[in-house]
């Protein structure tokens, strides 16, 4: 595994009024989960409103950063710069119950398993794009 050394531009998210808080949180090394200010429901990916109580007032909580692998893939083809291959991409179920897609770093692709405990870390690519990634949780491997 090598870290992504970006020569070509890294794919960037489209920032909207609904998701900007998440990406700004990463720049502050915080993994945020959107929360409905009305009923407290957590959701990811974020949306402009709560489908449970129909409120439009949303805030966020900082995730513990711990979770388990709910599913994963190992991308071999096509190799797209600036990513390194094989690229292990995980669907993490956070301790708080929401899920998100991220990269898994530091684990041999053959050793990745559903149910593995992982913990978040942060990186900055292309100078100013803050991203999350995950490693095997300390003590589990």
């Amino acid at each position, binding site marked *: 595994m090598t870290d992504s050394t970006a020569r070509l531009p890294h*794919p960037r998210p489209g920032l909207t009024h609904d998701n900007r808080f998440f990406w700004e949180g990463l720049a502050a090394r915080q993994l945020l989960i959107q929360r409905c200010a009305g009923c407290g429901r957590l959701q990811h990916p974020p949306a402009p409103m709560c489908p449970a109580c129909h409120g439009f007032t949303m805030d966020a909580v900082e995730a513990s950063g711990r979770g388990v692998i709910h599913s994963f893939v190992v991308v071999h083809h096509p190799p797209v710069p600036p990513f390194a291959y094989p690229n292990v991409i995980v669907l993490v179920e956070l301790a708080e119950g929401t899920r998100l897609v991220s990269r898994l770093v530091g684990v041999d692709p053959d050793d990745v398993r559903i149910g593995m405990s992982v913990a978040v870390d942060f990186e900055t690519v292309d100078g100013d794009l803050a991203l999350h990634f995950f490693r095997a949780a300390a003590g589990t491997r």
Partner: protein
Amino acid sequence: MTARRRATFAGATAVAGIGATEFSKDSGRSELRLACEAVMAALGDAGLAPADVDGIATFVMDNNPEIEVARAIGAGPLRFFSRVHYGGGAACGVVMQAALAVASGAAEVVVCYRAMNERSQQRFGIGTMPTARVATTETAHFGWYAPFGLLTPASWVAMQAQRYLHDYGATTEDFGRVSVACRTHAARNPRAWFHGQPITLAAHQASRWIVRPLRLLDCCQESDGAVAVVVTTLERARDLRQPPVVIRAAAQGASRDQHMMTSYYRDGIGDLPEMAEVARELYAQSGLGPADFQTAVIYDHFTPFVLAQLEAFGFCGRGEAKDFVRDGRIELGGALPINTHGGQLGEAYIHGMNGVAEGVRQVRGTAVNQVPGVEHVLVTAGTGVPTSAVILGSA
């Protein structure tokens, strides 16, 4: 089986014509020309003229505007034009749009087409992220995946496929049996790209990883080509050149917490609840059930979702498709031959429209791999996305 639900187009509309170009890797001509060729072939098949066309339905992803096709073929003034979103999930949705239009009287003859130089010009699997100068809801969506390298349809599907293997104890050989069946059928279809090239399960297992757990032979091919179908009322279709193929039922489906190719946030991500919604609706409209189909066209962009679709339509229980697809059950001569044209794995990837055409041929009795005694055919559209399906039957 569910009680029948009134849907005024179901049973009152028909596919009157089908047409296609050759399927290739480099058509050597414009997508617009491919669209026109397929539409003209479908109209000729139906015994209709371009001037008879007063409606068009196509995919949001198709690059050929309705008015450009209408202008080129010399269609009559259009009274109805419509597009269906979500990639190959539109394949049967466009037929439904056409059926709704002709049943309501909004139009009388609606042509549906999908035309693409998907191999020679605009490949879907090369791993690019849609960009926009100003962020949109859709670029925001891809932003949850692309920055981490989840960039291709294969990678999006593989995430659900991995969980399917885990939840149900299936193996990648079970994926491979779908590929073997489709290639077996394609091998006997002269129009199929893989005509004369069947594969073995061992060849599937030996093929290289694309995105684990998907191998090369789990992924459909990339194709240039076009397919069109003509939809009109059953009443009018009875007077046309071909025996009418009745649209017994048609439905679209999106689940709760549906995402575009990445419905990773609901329970049971190995399943396809949007297709289960479509199945319930089709069975309610038609009064039919899984035992009533002699053959089916199950959208096969990637093999794992064929298994999940067999479960969604009740051909077997949830998690049981791995056993269902054994022993040749989904091959010619089996209890439910699927994708008798070879599917998108074997014939061509025309975003599911070639599957609609094969469903029509099976009902007419003119398929190259004809199943005996066909009364009803199920045809499904793209999965992992908001989707659609139709039931076609004899008049």
